[in-house]
């Protein structure tokens, strides 16, 4: 009987093809969170005092805070003492220098299996990768080649050691630790993530990408990414994520900070495919993330493009603060929820500079018994003469047991601003599916066609190879949602 159930579950869950685990010796610190744990993490990473101070301040502040409850989410109670805050799968393999010449072959295999080869000769064309598993960056490719142009691309742990002045200047400057509950938590215990610095006038010649993988059981991942794009520079950055299938929820509380200076441009793309839990709603990653970009310079540009198909719960609002006059920000999002997944996601556009412009294109797709909410804020400060925003939020429903919700907030303090909002809700009809069936296209493929057509505007914003992946992912995520 037990075996039979196991088989049924395997079949039911095989659609999440990244659910395997890697058997590798992992150093995991004991569960629980206290000042001592914060100190231990800092010590393990060999950090300078100023960073330990930053962590401790954040931790003390976090202790005074309550988790947010305003999201359209049924959040499970998270026992923060029942999580391990540091897991190192490279323990024993990496030398003290942190160089990655000798990577455990199991780790190499894991990333190969995920389609992220860590050997440069096998790399996806024109993409440099920082591979992060649990709390540690395993390897960053093409560092030398990028260094020739003065570009820094490494894990944030290494950046703390090798470029402390840069990290110290910008860390917490876009998302202060007081920002919110999860930001404070992350600031206290963050482990690894990527650091990118593009010097003045440099166009980064390749896509930079970070691949996040949660592997160890009972651990949280607290990724911290910092991107600084100096005057007249350009970078396109990609982020991908997966996790094994586990019955318990896994916590992922990340911070991404982006600084964009004068005439600089950053494109940030995410394909988020964390384990969404099984079809009964058991397990899955809790993805509680603060992402924000600060468009500091005149005529700076930032675009967030996200395809969100994973996680049991997504709580995420990649935002832009448009300080520089003439700066432009874009947010393109496709969020898919199926089974019991819940998403409360959107963006904030804070217009401060003159002649600033922002665009929001959000496409929600809900299936199964899932709940999918768009939450967005467009704020125009007194100073933001001629600010312009265009928002378009569309929801697509598959079936009748799911929910789509839109919470657009506007806060406009300047009469010259023009803020537009459009919203639509549509449903894939039986007639559309039958029309496809009659032409020989089965229902799952028909849903995939329709959903990809619906999301095209966003998918087209992704770099080529990511776009192909994202298209497949949309189809797979909705398998079994109709009929």
């Amino acid at each position, binding site marked *: 009987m037990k075996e039979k159930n196991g088989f049924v579950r395997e079949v039911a869950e095989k659609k999440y093809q990244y659910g395997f685990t890697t058997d590798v010796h992992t150093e995991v610190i004991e569960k629980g969170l206290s000042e001592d744990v914060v100190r231990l993490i800092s010590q393990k990473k060999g950090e300078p005092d100023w960073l330990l101070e930053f962590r401790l301040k954040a931790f003390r502040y976090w202790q005074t805070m309550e988790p947010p409850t305003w999201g359209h989410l049924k959040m499970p109670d998270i026992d923060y003492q029942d999580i391990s805050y540091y897991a190192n799968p490279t323990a024993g393999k990496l030398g003290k220098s942190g160089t990655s010449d000798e990577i455990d072959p199991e780790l190499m295999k894991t990333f190969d299996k995920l389609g992220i080869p860590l050997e440069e000769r096998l790399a996806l064309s024109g993409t440099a990768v920082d591979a992060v598993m649990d709390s540690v960056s395993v390897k960053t490719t093409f560092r030398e080649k990028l260094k020739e142009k003065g570009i820094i691309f490494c894990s944030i742990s290494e950046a703390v050691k090798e470029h402390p002045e840069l990290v110290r200047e910008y860390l917490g400057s876009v998302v202060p630790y007081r920002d919110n509950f999860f930001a404070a938590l992350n600031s206290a215990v963050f482990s690894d993530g990527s650091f990118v610095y593009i010097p003045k006038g440099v166009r980064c010649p390749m896509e930079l990408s970070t691949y996040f993988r949660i592997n160890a059981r009972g651990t949280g991942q607290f990724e911290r990414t910092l991107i600084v794009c100096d005057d007249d520079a350009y970078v396109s950055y990609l982020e991908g994520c997966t996790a094994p299938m586990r019955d318990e929820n896994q916590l992922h509380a990340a911070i991404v900070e982006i600084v964009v200076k004068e005439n600089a441009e950053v494109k940030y793309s995410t394909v988020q495919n964390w384990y969404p839990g099984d079809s009964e709603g058991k397990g899955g990653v809790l993805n509680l993330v603060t992402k924000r970009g600060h468009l500091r310079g005149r005529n700076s540009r930032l675009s967030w493009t996200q395809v969100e198909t994973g996680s049991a719960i997504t709580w995420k609002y990649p935002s832009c603060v448009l300080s520089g006059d003439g700066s432009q920000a874009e947010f393109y999002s496709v969020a898919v929820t199926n089974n019991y997944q819940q998403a409360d996601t959107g963006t904030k556009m804070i217009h401060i500079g003159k002649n600033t412009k922002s665009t929001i294109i959000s496409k929600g797709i809900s299936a199964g018994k899932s709940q999918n909410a768009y939450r967005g804020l467009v704020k125009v400060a007194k100073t933001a003469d001629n600010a312009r925003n265009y928002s378009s939020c569309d929801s697509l429903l598959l079936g009748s047991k799911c929910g789509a919700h839109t919470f657009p907030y506007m806060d406009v303090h300047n009469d010259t601003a023009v803020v537009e909002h459009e919203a639509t809700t549509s449903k894939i009809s*039986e007639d*559309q599916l039958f*029309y496809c*069936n*009659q*032409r*020989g296209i*089965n229902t799952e493929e028909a849903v995939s066609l*329709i959903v*990809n057509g619906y999301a095209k505007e966003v998918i087209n914003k992704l770099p080529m190879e990511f776009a192909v992946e994202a298209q497949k992912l949309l189809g797979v995520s909705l398998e079994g949602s109709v009929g």
Partner: protein
Amino acid sequence: MLQINNLHARINGKEILKGINLTVRDGEVHAIMGLNGAGKSTLSNVIVGHPAYEVTQGEVIFNGKDLLKMTPEERAHEGVFLSFQQPVEIPGVSMVNFMRAALNAKRQFQGLEPLSAGDFLKLMREKRKIVELDSRLTSRSVNEGFSGGEKKRNEIFQMAMLEPTFSILDETDSGLDVDALRIVAEGFNKLRTPQTSALVITHYQRLLDYLKPDVIHVLIGGMIVKTAGPELALEIENRGFDWIKEEVGL
């Protein structure tokens, strides 16, 4: 090709088809005429497997196979095609992607490799000419913003692409002006071979003038009450259906 025996079907619990018997041989075109509500569209929907209809009795044998046991897409792969009376719009899905998915699904069923993008587009260009379908339309979303006539031409274009052996034209002539009707009908005729058959549902003689059906059936009250040669359509055009009702005692 197609044999229907004592077919009963209902929708929402209401019986619409009350014992249909019909045999269509290779190369034949049959026309079905009848008043609104007689069950003509129900018959076509049941043949292609629309999930809203429930078959309560009878059988449909297609080239020796039990059609009623197949999913709608399997029926399509076996060569059954329906030109819809009201083709649905599918926003966001381009005609090119849609046709490519349909054609490759069929090729997979036949054990063939998917067609390369180049060959596929070439095929689209060729087949488009059959119904004089503007290239502007094939780059749009499926049926979105198409006029009534364009939608019908698009149906015959899809038929040309998929090369079914048995096609059902469900009031393909409705809403067409004289020129569009000629284009659609001539397009259909170009696709006819001694191995393909069709069932044409219509109210009007003018489509049949082009298609020259072999057999005419009159469907009333969910049953085929009269079957005759092409001259029957002309008689209906002149005299309506009342005399047939009287003849069969309805």
